[in-house]
């Protein structure tokens, strides 16, 4: 089965080396590249198309959508969320097994009627509703290892007993329905974080039996980043292996990795290709 890479070209600095730095990864026969966007160009099956407004309204308040549409960030936010939805649709159609979604704006601070922290639309939530509406899938897990609390995702799924949301962040321990907040104190380092995650996954995910896992992956907890948790760069590949293994056990490997926090261009260049490589490996 195949791995999808969803990409839109950005003006910012963080992803300036992409897609060139992916090197031979795109040459692998099981890796498919979907990108956006080209003006006045005939459509192709590998276009990353923007999701329609009606889909946004399933998750976000129309007045909030209207506010975001008036911002300069709108198109970038729309294509960021659209990548996650497009990946989910192709996985549901069994065209892909897993995917990596490049975003320019994050997901998890976008709630029903609020946005912030560089997040305007909640791509994972939009994908959940798309898969429910079009494919009848019901149960999902969202694993959030961005260094900050996902207040938007938390709000959106607090009353949804068919979405397991596990948020690792420095906030205190909390649980509402199937929303779990698991504290990750600053300076905890790789080993403690990974042990904590492994325990949490074993305790909650198999029993929940999700049909697909979303991983809100941020590298802002890496040493020297703006959410520094004392994690080394090597942490992320270890976490990717853990989550890929988890997806393999509980949902046939169906996994979408959504790029969230993290700012440094050299780290993006170092950390992202091995994760895509791992997704594409058998």
């Amino acid at each position, binding site marked *: 089965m195949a791995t999808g890479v969803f*990409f*839109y*070209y*950005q*003006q*910012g*600095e*963080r*992803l300036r080396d*992409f*897609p*060139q730095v*992916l*090197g*031979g990864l*795109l*040459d692998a026969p099981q890796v498919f*590249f979907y*990108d*956006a*966007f*080209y*003006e006045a*160009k*005939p459509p*192709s099956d*590998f276009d990353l198309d923007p999701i329609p407004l009606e889909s946004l309204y399933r998750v976000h308040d129309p007045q909030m959508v209207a506010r975001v549409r008036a911002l*300069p*960030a709108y*198109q*970038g936010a729309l*294509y960021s969320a659209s990548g996650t939805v497009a990946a989910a649709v192709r996985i549901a159609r069994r065209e892909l097994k897993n995917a990596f979604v490049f975003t*320019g*704006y*994050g997901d998890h601070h976008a709630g029903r009627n609020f946005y912030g922290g*560089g997040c305007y639309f909640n791509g994972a939530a939009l994908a959940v509703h798309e898969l429910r509406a079009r494919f009848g899938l019901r149960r999902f897990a969202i694993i959030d290892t961005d260094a900050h609390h996902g207040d938007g995702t938390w709000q959106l799924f607090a009353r949804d007993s068919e979405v397991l949301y596990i948020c690792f962040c420095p906030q205190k321990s909390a649980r509402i329905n199937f929303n779990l907040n698991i504290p990750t104190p600053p300076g905890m380092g790789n080993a403690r974080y990974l042990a904590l995650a492994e325990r949490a996954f074993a305790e909650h995910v198999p029993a929940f039996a999700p049909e697909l896992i979303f991983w809100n992956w941020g590298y802002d907890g890496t040493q020297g980043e703006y959410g520094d948790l004392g994690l080394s760069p090597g942490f992320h590949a270890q976490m990717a292996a853990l989550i890929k293994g988890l997806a393999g056990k509980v949902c046939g490997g169906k996994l979408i990795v959504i790029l969230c926090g993290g*700012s440094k261009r050299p780290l993006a260049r170092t950390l992202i290709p091995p994760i895509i490589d791992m997704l594409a490996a058998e």
Partner: protein
Amino acid sequence: MSQLGKRYRCEECGTEILCTKAGEGEPQCCAKDMVLQEPRPLPSSD
């Protein structure tokens, strides 16, 4: 020189290709150089 990750289109027959390995040459189709499809970068948070 071809560019990895870029799309090229044949203006004769409409064939579109994605460059997955960069090289020295220019991709051709229908005996003509294919046209690079230029993206329009969008805003991001950084």
